[in-house]
C-alpha cells in the first residue's frame, strides 16, 4: 500500500484514507494478534530516545517485538553518541545503515524533520519537544474507533489545559478532518485553546464551543478528552486551587453524561480524574494505553511494507 517507506513526523502527514487504513489494520491485529506475530521477522527497529520517555519507548518496543521484529537503541541521550557531541544528523545517518525503521524521541522541536531528511529508512516521530507526537493521536483515534465504532459525527469534549496541551492540539487538528465532528472546549479562561487552533477550526468550518466549566456541557459529549491542569501555569496558588476542582472529573460530574461516553486521557494522570472514575465502564484511558501498542504495530507494519 501507499505508506511503504514513508515517514510519520507530524499528525497531518497521512491523509484520512491512509490513516484509516492503518487504524483498520490495527483493529485486525487487535482482533487476532497471533496471526501477525511473525510479520516483521528479521526486521530491526532502532529506538533512539534522546530524552527518556519510558511509556512511549516501551509501547514502541513491545509493538516491534510482538510483530516478531527486533529492537536496538538507547533510552536517554547520556548513553548515546550525542553525549560525545555527535550531531543528530550523523547519528541518524549511521543508524539508518543498521536498522529498517527508526523511532526518534528528542527534546528539541523539529528534530524529527531533520532525522527524516537524512535517514535512508522510515522515521517515526515519537515526540519532539512540545512540537508533535503523532503516534499519540493515532492511539487516541484507534481508541475512539474501538469504543465508538466511528469517528465522524462525534461531539468531542476537551477539558483542562487546552493552551499548552500538545496532545489536544494534534488530536483536534487531525480529527476535525472527519465529517461532522464538533468540539466542546472546557478550560480555565487563561488556558483556552490557542489562537492558531481557533483560526484553523474557523478556516475549515468546524463547529466548536468554548466554556469555562466542564459540568454544564458534559451531557452533550460523545468523547471526553481529559488533560492535566498544571500548577505552574497559574499566577498564584489561590487561582489554581479555585479552578482545578472545576476541571477534575469525578463520579458526580459524570452523572449527567451520556451512557456511552468515551473518557480518554493521554496518561500519566495526576489528579484530574478521580480514582473512583476508573471503575466506571465509560473510562477508556487504560484501554487507550493498550491501543497505543496496536496503533504502533500497524504503523510500523505499514511503513515497512509488510502488509
Amino acid at each position: 500500500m501507499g505508506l511503504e517507506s514513508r515517514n510519520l513526523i507530524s499528525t497531518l502527514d497521512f491523509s484520512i484514507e491512509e490513516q484509516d487504513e492503518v487504524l483498520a489494520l490495527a483493529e485486525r491485529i487487535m482482533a487476532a494478534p497471533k496471526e501477525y506475530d511473525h510479520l516483521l521477522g528479521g526486521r530491526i527497529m532502532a529506538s533512539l530516545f534522546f530524552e527518556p520517555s519510558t511509556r512511549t519507548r516501551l509501547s514502541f518496543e513491545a509493538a516491534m517485538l510482538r510483530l516478531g521484529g527486533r529492537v536496538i537503541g538507547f533510552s536517554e541521550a547520556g548513553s548515546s553518541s550525542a553525549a560525545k557531541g555527535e550531531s543528530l544528523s550523523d547519528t541518524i545517518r549511521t543508524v539508518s545503515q543498521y536498522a529498517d525503521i527508526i523511532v526518534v524521541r528528542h527534546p528539541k522541536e523539529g528534530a524529527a524533520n531533520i532525522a527524516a531528511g537524512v535517514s535512508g529508512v522510515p522515521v517515526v516521530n515519537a515526540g519532539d519537544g512540545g512540537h508533535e507526537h503523532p503516534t499519540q493521536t493515532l492511539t487516541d483515534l484507534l481508541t475512539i474507533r474501538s469504543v465508538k465504532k466511528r469517528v465522524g459525527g462525534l461531539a468531542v469534549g476537551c477539558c483542562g489545559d487546552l493552551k499548552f496541551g500538545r496532545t489536544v492540539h494534534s488530536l483536534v487538528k487531525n480529527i476535525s478532518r472527519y465529517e461532522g465532528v464538533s468540539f466542546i472546549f472546557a478550560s480555565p479562561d487563561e488556558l483556552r485553546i490557542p489562537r492558531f487552533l481557533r483560526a484553523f477550526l474557523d478556516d475549515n468550518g468546524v463547529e466548536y464551543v468554548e466554556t469555562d466549566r466542564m459540568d454544564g456541557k458534559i451531557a452533550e459529549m460523545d468523547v471526553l478528552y481529559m488533560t492535566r491542569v498544571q500548577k505552574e501555569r497559574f499566577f498564584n496558588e489561590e487561582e489554581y486551587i479555585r479552578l482545578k476542582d472545576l476541571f477534575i472529573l469525578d463520579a458526580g460530574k459524570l452523572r449527567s453524561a451520556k451512557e456511552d461516553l468515551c473518557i480518554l486521557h493521554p496518561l500519566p494522570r495526576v489528579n484530574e480524574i478521580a480514582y473512583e472514575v476508573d471503575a466506571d465502564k465509560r473510562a477508556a484511558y487504560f484501554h487507550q494505553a493498550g491501543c497505543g501498542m496496536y496503533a504502533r504495530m500497524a504503523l510500523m507494519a505499514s511503513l515497512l511494507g509488510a502488509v
Partner: protein
Amino acid sequence: MKGQRLVNSIEKGIVIDHIRAGLGVKLFHFLKLDNADFTVVIISGAESKRMGRKDIIKIQNMIDIDYTVIGLIDHNATISIIEDGEITEKKKLELPRRVENVIVCKNPRCITSTERQIPHVFSLQNAETRTYRCDYCEDHVRGIEI
C-alpha cells in the same frame, strides 16, 4: 544633499532606495555588507516627498547580492542597477516565500539551537502580517521582529 543626486552619482553598482527610515542599517547587516570588500554608502534619514524620511543604500561595483533579503526586510524598497552612471534596470521586490540562513530561529527549544550545520529555513506564513514560520519548530516570527 538631495536623494536624487546621490542616486545618480554612482557609476556602477546598485542603489536600494525608498527604504523605510530606520531599516537601512538593519538591511546593511542582513546583507552582510559590513564585511564587504567594496564601497557601501548608507544614507539614513534622507528627505523624501513621498515618505517624509527614508534610508538609501548604495553599493559600488557589485550587483550580485541576495535580493530576497531586501524583500524580506522591506519589500517596498526600490532597486536600481546602475552602469556607466545610468539606470539599466529597476527591480520589483516581493516578500520571499522561503528564506534560508537569513532569519535565525530564536526558539531555544528548536533543533536549530543545537544542530549547528543545518540551515535555518523560514517559510512565509501570512503575507499581510509578514509572518514567517521556522520549517523545523514552526515557531512564528512577525516581520516587525525580523
